């Protein structure tokens, strides 16, 4: 951590040659890269399929050898997502409010949106922002420090407000993703 820039560079350069395994990994990736580049010229379908199979095989091998670590990492990722959902820290919560606000303003300014889409977006964003405002006002009235999450969630009403607003936010995001997916598909079909 306390390395100078040159030391960092040197460490990075010597990194692939620290053991036989690292050299092996480096070679595999170089060969893969060369094959990919070469095949761009040749455009051979069989080589393409073989390369995809090779990549899948290589990563399956990694998964097989490090499955416990990978499961641990995946569990930690899911746990982090759950923490963000059930007990988001104030920065994450403010971020969701900003996203909601941006979506609201974008929907207001965009002219060629379907009315139903606008109504649904307005409903979800307004509820979300209302809950966020409510959360802040409650925190101020209870004189809570928003830095410590435990401090926030020891109060049941704060927990409920955040939980409901997170659910609304997720519904909003899922709705937006599905809508845009369908919309883009619809537009493509129209153009055909």
């Amino acid at each position, binding site marked *: 951590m306390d390395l100078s820039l040159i030391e960092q560079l040197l460490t990075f350069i010597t990194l692939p040659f620290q053991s036989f395994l690292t050299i092996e990994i480096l070679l595999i990736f170089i060969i893969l890269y060369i094959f990919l580049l070469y095949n761009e010229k040749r455009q051979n379908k069989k080589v393409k399929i073989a390369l995809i199979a090779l990549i899948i095989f290589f990563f399956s091998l990694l998964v097989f050898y490090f499955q416990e670590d990978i499961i641990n990492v995946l569990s930690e990722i899911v746990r982090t997502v759950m*923490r963000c959902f*059930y*007990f988001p820290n104030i920065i994450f919560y403010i971020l969701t409010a900003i996203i909601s606000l941006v979506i609201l303003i974008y929907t207001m300014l965009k002219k060629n949106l379907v009315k139903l889409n606008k109504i649904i977006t307005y409903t979800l964003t307004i509820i979300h922002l209302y809950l966020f405002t409510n959360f802040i006002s409650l925190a101020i009235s209870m004189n809570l420090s928003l830095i*410590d999450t*435990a*401090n926030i*969630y*020891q109060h049941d009403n704060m927990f409920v407000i955040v939980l409901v607003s997170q659910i609304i936010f997720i519904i909003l995001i899922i709705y937006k993703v599905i809508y845009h997916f369908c919309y883009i598909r619809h537009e493509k079909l129209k153009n055909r």
Partner: protein
Amino acid sequence: MWLKDQKMQRKSRNIKSQLSKVGFFFLIVGILVFLSTPLRILKDEVFEEMRLAIFQLNINENNNTTINNVNTENLEVTVENNQEAEENDKKANYSYIGELSIPKINLRRGFVSKESRYNNIEYNVTIANEADYPDVPMGNFILMAHSGNAYISFFDKLYRLEIGDEASVSYNANTYNYRLTNIYNQAKTGTVAIYRDPTKKTLTLITCTHNDDYNQTIYIFEEI
């Protein structure tokens, strides 16, 4: 004739597309069902973390000190009453008075007071009625919890412990450190005899023996 063929083709394409949608739907449902149990376990862990954080916060506020530890207790649980336990826990609202921590098996679990109705094997690591609290000189702090693979199997990894492993208990703004000195089994008869050095402060953990339906294991820790 040509129009008829086209209509037929369109119809079969529609059926295929609808079938693929139904297939996709069932695939998603299947994945969700498959992942529901591990996700629920992870969710419980996240809630447990927050409960411990709140417990620590309250301790810090009351005593102006820092605490890093948890507790335990055990018995056996079946998959049938697992769901009931989960339902109970969802309705439960309690705060911890202390925490048991066993770093070797990544166990970190809060415990409630003996008087609390949540000092129950179906909710928490439970303090035995006969137990002394950790601050009692030469006392024996006894904790019990389920083992196995159920939601409330807080002591499911105790069997990995070996003599010399360490545990600690946080209680009343103090941390009590213990070392495992004895492990023994007893038949499940509804009672358990605890063999310990009465001149030392001890921590006793009781749970069902790993892969054994007829015995329970007692872990005796002595204060370091």
